[in-house]
């Protein structure tokens, strides 16, 4: 569920908002419906990795990876898919951290006052 919500919301909102909206989406989603810490890390991670990989390939394949190959050279890397990997994993990492933080934020805020 977390996975799907993040995937769809990130897709739609990134069409109009900057990339860092994924931080807010992951944080909020896991803050509201992230059942466990594990779910709140891995589901945002895979949602963004999948979404970003898909979008990157959607733009890059019809371009015969011409541009991404030049960008790889700019970063002194030799193959274009390393750029894809770095983009997707870095995006996923940010989402994962945000989700995890969202989950723990809820835990911190919603602690019952009766507990010592």
């Amino acid at each position: 569920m977390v996975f799907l919500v993040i995937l769809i919301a990130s897709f739609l909102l990134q069409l109009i908002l900057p990339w860092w909206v994924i931080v807010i989406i992951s944080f909020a989603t896991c803050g509201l419906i992230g059942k466990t810490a594990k779910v709140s890390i891995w589901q945002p991670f895979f949602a963004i990795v999948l979404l970003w990989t898909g979008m990157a390939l959607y733009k890059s394949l019809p371009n015969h990876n011409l541009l991404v190959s030049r960008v790889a050279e700019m970063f002194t890397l030799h193959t274009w898919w390393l750029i894809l990997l770095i983009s997707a994993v870095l995006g996923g990492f940010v989402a994962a951290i945000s989700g995890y933080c969202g989950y723990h934020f809820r835990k911190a805020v919603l602690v019952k006052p009766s507990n010592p």
Partner: protein
Amino acid sequence: MRNKLKAVICVIIPVLLAFGLNTKFGPLPPLLKFLNPFTGFWQNAEKMSVTQQSTLKLKGTEETVDVIFDDRMIPHIFAKNDHDVYYAQGYITAMNRLWQMEFQTRFAAGRLSEVVGAKVIEVDRYQRRMGMVYGAENSLKGMMEDPVSKAMIMAYTDGINAYIHSLSSSQLPLEYKILDFVPEDWTPLKCALLLKQMSAVLAMGSDEFYMSNILKKYGPGVTADLFPDYPFREDPIIPVGTKWNFKSLPVPQTPQSYTEMTTGKIKTKELEDGIGSNNWALSGAKTASGYPILANDPHLNLTLPSIWYQIQLNAPGLNAYGVSLPGAPGITIGFNKDIAWGVTNVAADVLDFYQIRFKDETHKQYFYNKTWKNTKIRLEAIKIRGARTEIDTVFYTHHGPVVYFHKPENLKMADNVPLGNALRWIAHDKSNELMTFYQLNRGKNYDDYRKALTYYTAPAQNFIFASSANDIAITANGKFPLKWKDQGKFILDGSDPKNDWQGWIPADQNPTVKNPERNFVSSANQSSTDPTYPYYINWEFGSYERGKRINDRLKVMQKATADSIRLMQSDSYSILAQNLLATLVSRVDPAKLNATQKEALEITGKWNKFFSAKSVGASIFDLWTKRLFFDIWDDDFTIASVPMRYPSKDRTTELILKDPDSKWFDNVNTPQKETLNDLVNEAFKYACDSLERKNGPIGKNWRWANVKQTHVPHLANIPGMGSKTLMIGGAKSTINALGETNGPSWRMIVELGKKPKGHGVYPGGQSGNPGSFFYDNMLDTWAEGKLYDLYLMQSADDTSVKVLQHLKISKK
């Protein structure tokens, strides 16, 4: 409490992460801002296929505009009035080249620090202190005074801004994302800045600091001998013997006094073949068709995106095709139904330094005409990314700005600027070059051509012309100061009014020739005229070698076709080798050579003097002569505290051929006496050894293309965005003047006739986007020395052209 802290940390971590990955650190782009596929670089990856029909609604147009993109994505703009044609030119050019336009004008204005930070502050200061903005402001006044050029520049500016305002963050050109800044609005001043930058590239050369130092060290005798006012060998642009059909103005008297000079602690700059160009036109008597053929290839520093932008402009009274400078309206080099025109640079001396005597350290007053005159102050505010704005104070005399009081560190371009001197430069004057191109684009005949040239100020160009009425002509054109002979060869005394520019050579007395007897006109940056021309333009021009080869070939050419001219544009025969090779080879002593050197000598002896890609002889000869010239002059003309330059290639050749026992061959730093033979042998061994060290034993790696390493770098030198190394021939002093990163930036041939036929190519493509297939698609054709057909469409529905896209712009 612990929970509150935890909650705060849980918020802070994601915020920091987002902030950190959205911010630029050091040379890297802001990582996720750049790498995310929704707004990052991935969005700049263009599809290979192009939509065939598209429409656009823009507020700024008056009527409908049709833009046809042909199979190389070259736009053909069909508008119903002047305003719309330049508006659309602005919009379409920005669509392809926005970042380039902004970057070049930022560079010109000394505003790079604002976007890339303090590391380029010296470049910005240099541009400001040379008066680039001051000159552009003056120039703009000239453009805005004429209602026609004003309307043109305003429409063009509005077109560019319409495009800028249509951009979302994901659509920003790639380099904005890499360097992390956003486009600012275009202004008419930026058009003027761009033209000033062309002046800076082509007419900012100045040797007077070096020449003054040479005069001081060696005296007038040696200076006149080694730096003569007319070359030993020359083949001037206006044919020798051409009559001057005008009554010339009196030339000012040379004043009695020569100047004092100061020196700073800087290194000698070795004289390098400058940025040059070729153009020529044959009359119908020499062509197969009976109509003239015109050819032009301007040589500049090659970059991607391409320096030029191909375009066709059509409106009532206008139907022209050619190349434009992204950032200036109109077509700079091109043709229409009736005429064709092109340009090469004139090395006119339109930049002089004046030594200034200030009253005191405040620099508020300077001595002029026996009295103290006030300086003006111009404050240059230089914004710096990540630092406080710097205010640089520049003092202006009536001559112009005092460029430096202190030498900037590590800025090679400032080496030839003498300290405490004021700069008088033609590019600081009011001017309106745009009108020249406005009129040429619409020109119908020779008279229109002559009239168009009168508007032109700088950088001075050899404007070549051919028409379907079978006229050919060439004019060394620009606003030339009326000077006494050699005025500005050395630094001038700024306190003596006799040293000021005394007026101007009348525009109709600029060197020109129409339909000469030899049935062709040509130029390759050599001397404009023979010594009979009554005015002084400069004491030294580009070397004659390319011009000589062009004229040699054109003299014998009959029934020329576009193809014979095309082959000539990629001719790499070396006149320097023709003059020197046999003499040098005969002076080498084979007995003292090792095996490699012997083999190299044999190859060089048999070399056909063409700088072709696979030639090994070319590599050896090139390095050999460079080393030889260094051996001859370095001991005499490189002194750390006194920056000087070497005598010219022409004078050196004369010395080797005519005066082999000259004292200049002795190395003054050694006790024994060296002869020309000693130097020739040393240089030959040096050349062979260094080639061997770098490329191994004689073989494929010694080939000229491999030694030369021609490539086309990105404009901002961003790795990965330039071209691969091109294995091609050509050399700086040959017609195909290809160096490591400079050479023919546009090759054009126009066959005039009932219907003109154009052919052309540049090393790049229409698009400025490294993620486009049209970024460098013409590069290989250019490298092979081939040309594309250029389509001068008759109407938007012309079916002779393969159309990729039809864009209809209508009024909103």
